[in-house]
Every structure is written in structure tokens, then in C-alpha cells.
């Protein structure tokens, strides 16, 4: 059933989830690209990613490419389902099925 997800509804978290959901095959996205897509600062993006990770909506993997550290973020199955429910809810509100 479609329902509002208050955790996802925060503007930056909504953008993060939208960017991850747009990835074909659920491929992980590098932190730098996520930053470019969401136009957020490092600190703000990191903080909201931690919130989403704690909720089980995203997975964060850190590794090294040569000597360069790399952070990649992927949407979990639970995150994908929650995002779709949230989008369905938004559509229902726009179409006048629920909300005011």
C-alpha cells in the first residue's frame, strides 16, 4: 500500500534515493557522482547517507582504487521498495486519491 515515508521525504534524501533508483540494475554510485547529481556538500550528503544507511535503505562500501579512497553507495531492496511506495503515495496525492 502506498504511504508517505517521512525519512525519504526530506528533500536531499529524496534526491539521493531518486539518483540511486535511476541506476540501471541497482549499480552502486560513487560518492562524488552522487554529490554532483544532488548538488549537496560533502558533509550534508554524508550525514543524510548515514541516516539512510541506518534505516537499511542504502549500503555504503568503502575501498581503495590504487591509493585513492573510494566510497560507493547502492540502494538496498528494502530501500527500493520504500522509495516506490513513497513515489506511489506522492502520485496518489497529486491525483487526489489521498492527502488534501
Amino acid at each position, binding site marked *: 500500500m502506498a504511504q*508517505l515515508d517521512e525519512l525519504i521525504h526530506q528533500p536531499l534524501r*529524496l*534526491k539521493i534515493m531518486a*539518483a540511486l533508483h*535511476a541506476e540501471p540494475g541497482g549499480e552502486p554510485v560513487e560518492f562524488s*557522482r552522487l554529490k554532483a547529481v544532488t548538488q549537496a556538500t560533502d558533509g550534508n550528503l554524508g550525514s543524510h547517507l548515514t541516516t539512510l544507511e541506518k534505516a537499511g535503505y542504502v549500503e555504503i562500501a568503502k575501498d581503495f582504487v590504487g591509493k585513492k579512497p573510494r566510497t560507493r553507495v547502492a540502494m538496498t531492496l528494502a530501500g527500493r521498495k520504500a522509495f516506490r511506495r513513497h513515489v506511489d503515495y*506522492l502520485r496518489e496525492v*497529486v491525483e487526489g486519491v489521498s492527502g*488534501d
Partner: protein
Amino acid sequence: MVISRTEAASALTDIEQTAGRSRVLKSYQIAGPILMVWGVVWAIGYSAMGLLPAERWGMIWLALDVAGAVATVLLSRRPKAAGKAGAGWRIGVGVLAIMAFFVASYAVFQPTTIAPAIVYPGLVTGLVYVGVGIVFMPRFLWIGAAVFAASLIGYFLFQPWLAFWMAAVGGGGLLLGGLWLRRA
């Protein structure tokens, strides 16, 4: 918590814009190395035209174009989707269509001097990139315009050295354009 229709519509717009931006940046990441490959192809091909006799140009360009097309298909496959149908075949068909267009154009118009034949691929490539830029990836608009303008400048101002001009400015421009896309 209940949200208004306006707030919901605004959130949906945000989602669409973010997903669109994500797709464009991903496309730049894939297109960058491909453009760099074609920059090298141009640099080698046009340098060969400046250095070698005309009867060897056809074979050199055939080999370079085949190498470029194969590299394009390989680079446009998504890393984790190897073996799955992706954009690779579409881009490959696109490259073949453009090559067929060049061959057909030369066969129909049969340029009598060499300079128009040298500059023509630059003009068409520039036009194709401008089209890609208008429809899908805005950075291609600038790359296409630069290639188009550089080809015309070479034709009108540097005709005696046109092949080397196209190798350096055209090939180098594509290389730089590829780097610019990759860093997006």
C-alpha cells in the same frame, strides 16, 4: 503527516529532475572514453593523410574506423551488465550508420579536390554532436560546435596543412572533450 498536492507535485518534479541529471552524468562517464578513442583515431588517421601517399589512406582509415567502432561497442557496455543487451549495440549501429553516410556522400558527390574530402567528416561529426547535445547531453553541443568551427577554420585559413590541422585540432579537441565529459 499529510502533505499537500502542491508539495507532492514538487517532490515528484524533484525526483524526475534528479533521475534525469543522474542519467546524463552517467552518459558522460560512458561517452568520455569513447570520445577520447575517436580523438586518437582522428589524430592517427589525419596524420597519416598528411604523411603518406593517397593510395594508402583508404586502408588506414578502414583499419582505424573498425578499431574505433569495436572500442566504442566495448566501452559502451555497462561493466556489470556484460553479456546483457545494453546500449552498446545501438551505439555500434549508430557508428556504422555514420560511416555508411560518409561513404555514400563521397560516392555521390565525388569531391574533385582533397581539401573538401578532408574537412567533410569534421563538419558532419560536429553537426551530429550538436544534435546529441540539443536532444540529450548538453556538453556535446559545445564539443560539436567546436569541432564544426575548427574544421571550417582549418579549411579556410590553413588549407595547405589541413590534414595536420584536423589531426591536431580535431583529434586533440575530441580528446579534450572526452576528458571534459569524463570529469562531469
